[in-house]
């Protein structure tokens, strides 16, 4: 047997006999891509905010919002348009609408893909343009641009906004850097193997989190490590693709903790399920829970079949949701949901 000739023949025979399924809906691919982009941004930018009180059990929002954790979904408004909700004040923190970043209500030039505000600091990610994988992070303080960080530095800010971690790369060198944003001081610097930074190999590592105490987490397929400046790096078991947020259901994706850690919120469907692989699931609700207390879980639904693509804590009581009127991305809105008042409204935007 001529092995190589036989290989060619057999692979061709097998390939020709494959009955490929119909191509996937492009809309579904785009939604998955956008959710991937959102999740990637989300992992880099942990949301902030606090919640005044733990809320127990299921609840139903008044007016246009209505949904419990156990009853089947009952749309109280047939419109998919979030503008059927009352209109409230403009967002009180920097936000992204479309691809524009607004800081103190002023649009910032460029294409922006993620923003986090905490402790008076705002970390925003700017894309190199459509399809570009290059990102630049910009640090704002009190509404003013403070610093443009190196491209692809993968910066992450702690939940309370006091620490910043990033990877600084120079020819033949890569350093993991942790800074204290309260006094703009470098807390520590740890050399990394430059071959593991920004490569396409399975050895590639990425920053995954920085804690309020400055402990930074990074890893990839092969290793996951943690390091606190002044200490020694340690191997950790966590998968780098899993956010280090514990105490929530297995299926919960991108749980955003309030700054005091007393409550987490994540996007779900109206049944409180969060399964990004189950297209065309509508993520038209936000589910909230006290960590490790599943009995406190509740789900707030927006008008049925709207499409939620982003969530962050705006204040101690409010979450801001990025909402499209449908999965085709028709008109984007920012919706503010008060966990305390159990009501939602459209935030006024330009």
């Amino acid at each position, binding site marked *: 047997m001529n092995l190589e000739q036989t290989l060619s023949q057999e692979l061709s025979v097998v*390939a020709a006999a494959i009955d490929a399924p119909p191509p*996937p809906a492009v809309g579904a691919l785009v939604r998955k891509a956008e959710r991937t982009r959102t999740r990637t941004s989300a992992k880099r930018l942990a949301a902030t905010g606090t919640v005044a009180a733990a809320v127990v059990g299921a609840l139903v929002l008044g007016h246009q919002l209505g949904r419990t954790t156990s009853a089947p979904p009952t749309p109280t408004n047939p419109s998919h348009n979030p503008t059927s909700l009352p209109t409230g004040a403009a967002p009180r923190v920097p936000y992204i609408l479309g691809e524009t970043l607004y800081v103190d209500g002023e649009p910032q030039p460029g294409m922006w893909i993620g923003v986090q505000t905490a402790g008076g600091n705002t970390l925003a990610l700017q894309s190199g343009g459509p399809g570009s994988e290059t990102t630049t992070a910009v640090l704002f303080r009190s509404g003013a641009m403070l610093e443009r960080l190196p491209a692809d530095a993968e910066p992450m800010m702690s939940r309370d906004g006091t620490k910043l971690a990033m990877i600084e790369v120079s020819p033949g060198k890569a350093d993991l850097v942790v800074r204290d944003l309260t006094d703009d001081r470098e807390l520590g610097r740890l050399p990394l193997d430059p071959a593991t930074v920004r490569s396409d190999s399975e050895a590639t590592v990425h920053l995954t989190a920085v804690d309020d105490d400055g402990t930074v987490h990074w890893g990839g397929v092969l290793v996951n490590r943690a390091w606190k400046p002044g200490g020694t790096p340690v191997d950790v078991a966590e998968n780098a693709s899993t956010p280090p947020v514990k105490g929530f259901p297995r299926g919960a994706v991108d749980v955003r903790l309030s700054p005091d850690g007393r409550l987490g919120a994540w996007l779900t469907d109206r049944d409180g399920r969060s399964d990004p692989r189950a297209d065309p699931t509508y993520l038209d609700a936000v589910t909230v829970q006290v960590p490790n207390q599943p009995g406190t879980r509740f789900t707030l639904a927006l008008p049925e079949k709207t499409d939620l693509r982003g969530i962050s804590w705006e204040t101690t009581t409010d979450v801001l949701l990025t909402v499209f009127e449908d999965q085709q991305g028709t008109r984007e809105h920012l919706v503010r949901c008060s966990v305390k008042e159990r009501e939602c409204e459209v935030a006024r935007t330009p």
Partner: protein
Amino acid sequence: MPLRTRAVPDTGAATYEEYVGARWTALYRTAYLLTTNHADAEDLAQAALVKTYLSWSKVAAAASPDAYVRRILTNEFLSSRRPLRVTREQLVDQPPEVGIGTPETHERLALWPHISALPPKQRAVIVLRYYEDLSEQQIADALGCSPGTVKSNASAALRSLRARIGTTEGASS
């Protein structure tokens, strides 16, 4: 939202949507040869297309968009191979899912049942070399490794297949 860029030269597709329609079957077939089962093939091909969307401006601007997407596909295949899945495949002493062609076709496939037992990188090299008909340099570009690594993986794969065929033939004689 259609992404309008210049025409993709090796497919004629002008948009992401057109590219998906034009190349889905070819991508799926390569994904099937890599994964050796339909469920994983569909997951892999879709995952590659999702990443293609995220890099569409680069794909459309590439000299060979197909080569760019092939690199995405093979990297996705290699990076998503978790130890559990590899272990499971090695532990299950069964030929890969066939579900294709006639029984006569199946009987003619002496090597295909052994391909899934190859380590993922060797399998990728075999598929790119003997199905996609790529050169060592093109395979190296697709896998992000050196031509020498391609050569050593190909040699190891062929050695392994020869040994398996020898064992099978010995057992059946």
